[in-house]
């Protein structure tokens, strides 16, 4: 279980202190899918970056299975079982797809294992494992490899920041099936996408850095549509 207690994050902008997150309290129970949604600038990505340790909170605590991980570094949180898929996948000069899958899975994989990881995201291993993970790959390919890296870690808690972005030629059903098949893990997804919200056990709606509502998607749907000014993708016939 992941618990967030009285978490705040503020920045100084033009000499004015601005609250990005304010007094956030949340509990993420084992084995459930949580989708964090809300308008742009509501603090969704900042919240998950703070959970991973990429951004340091101004105040508050983060507890993982009762252990205070607030001051732990990124790699320590990773080793404790948190996985994180970036909204914008990172590229490298020189490291190949197989190098990164070996790092993420913590072992030297044979071709069949690499094939298993990549086929989960609809890619054929022989076309990718020896390619550098650089900007010669398309945005969609990078995004899928990003997902494969996180899935290969078999972490107990996985965070996906807007996983649908760039998955242009791959069906959403495949993507949502991946999340549904993550058994015995806690899944936290940042998304505006209706099909992803539909698979959530719990939806968390953020507004102006505060938790506005937590509940089932069906209950929150009208409020979400109001808060996102109809921008909720996949709703009202869009997408």
């Amino acid at each position, binding site marked *: 279980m992941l618990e967030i207690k009285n978490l705040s994050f503020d920045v100084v902008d033009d000499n004015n202190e601005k609250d990005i997150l304010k007094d956030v309290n949340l509990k993420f129970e084992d084995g459930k899918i949580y989708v964090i949604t809300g308008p742009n600038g509501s603090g969704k990505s900042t919240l998950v970056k703070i959970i*991973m340790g*990429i951004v340091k909170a101004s105040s508050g605590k983060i507890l993982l299975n009762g252990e205070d991980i607030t001051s732990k*570094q*990124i*790699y320590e949180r*990773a*080793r404790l079982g948190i*996985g*994180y898929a*970036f909204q914008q996948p*990172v590229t*490298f*000069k*020189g*490291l*190949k797809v197989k*190098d*990164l899958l070996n*790092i*993420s899975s*913590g072992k030297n994989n044979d071709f069949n294992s690499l094939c298993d990881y990549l086929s989960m995201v609809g890619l054929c291993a022989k076309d990718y494992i020896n390619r*550098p993970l650089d900007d010669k790959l398309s945005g969609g390919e990078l995004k899928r490899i990003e997902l494969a*890296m996180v899935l290969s*870690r078999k972490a107990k808690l996985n965070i996906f920041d807007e996983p649908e972005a760039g998955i242009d030629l791959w069906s959403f059903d495949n993507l949502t099936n991946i999340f549904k098949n993550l058994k015995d893990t806690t899944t936290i997804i940042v998304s505006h996408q209706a099909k992803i919200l539909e698979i959530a056990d719990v939806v968390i709606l953020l507004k102006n850095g505060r938790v506005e509502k937590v509940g089932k998607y069906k209950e929150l749907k009208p409020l979400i549509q109001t808060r996102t000014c109809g921008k909720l993708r996949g709703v009202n016939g869009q997408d």
Partner: protein
Amino acid sequence: MDKIDEMLLEKVSDLHKISLGAFNIRKNGQVLDRKNTKEIEIVPKKNKNGIDIIVQPNVKNKAVHIPVIITVGGLNDLVYNDFYIGENADVVIVAGCGIHNNTDETSTHNGIHSFHLAKNSHVKYIERHVGEGTGKGGKILNPITKIYQKENSSMEIETLQLGGVTSSVRKTFAKLAENANLHIQENILTTENQTATTLFKVNLVGKKSKVEVVSHSVAKDNSYQEFKSNLIGANECFGHVECDGILLNNARIISIPMIDAKDSESSLVHEAAIGKIAGDELIKLMTLGLNQEEAENMIIKGFLMG
């Protein structure tokens, strides 16, 4: 041949198991061993140190190894190696120098290589430089490579120097005829107070000739690297130089580009980027469980060996 010799040979040329084609092993300024084949002849020079390597026309998928090892201090070795690659030949040449210096006296190797590629020939040239040993004596390597490519010939060069070399000055000159193609990949790591200087001068004389130079540099501690390139476009041609450097600690890298488009149809590009390891690369690897030092080492390894 002792264990140090075998280890150096493995590092510079994979020649630890001598079951290959033609080769010439030079140790401490003397020829240690040599083998000719029907297709590749190695002829010692009469008036100076060095060899002529003659690859017959139409020879395909053959390799020649010419490693140099130095295991003593106080040696200043100068050698001239000239390669003559016949028409339509396609060969791999593995050269390089390993210095294992346990003394306080400096040892230097100056390898002056010239490549003469006939029409339609292809050469892959792998050059590795290694410096090691417990002495305070310098390990200095100053290779000069001259390349003359005839019509439709192509050459790939891979240079690898992964630390240990006190000082290196590497000069490469090339002249490309019509439709000739040259690709150079240079990967250099310097540490401590080491210095490495590279100079490329490529003359694109022939129509549709093409050169690509990719340099990956990692400079650690107080080391210093300098990269100078000069592409001269004297015809309808394409030239591209990419210099990427990673800096750690108090190191310094200088990149000095020069592109001289003498012909209005020439297209010449120079790109250079030098800086610390990208923060997002470190963060990504840390989210996969590597600590900062492990992540830095992994990024550098990929950058130099990828």
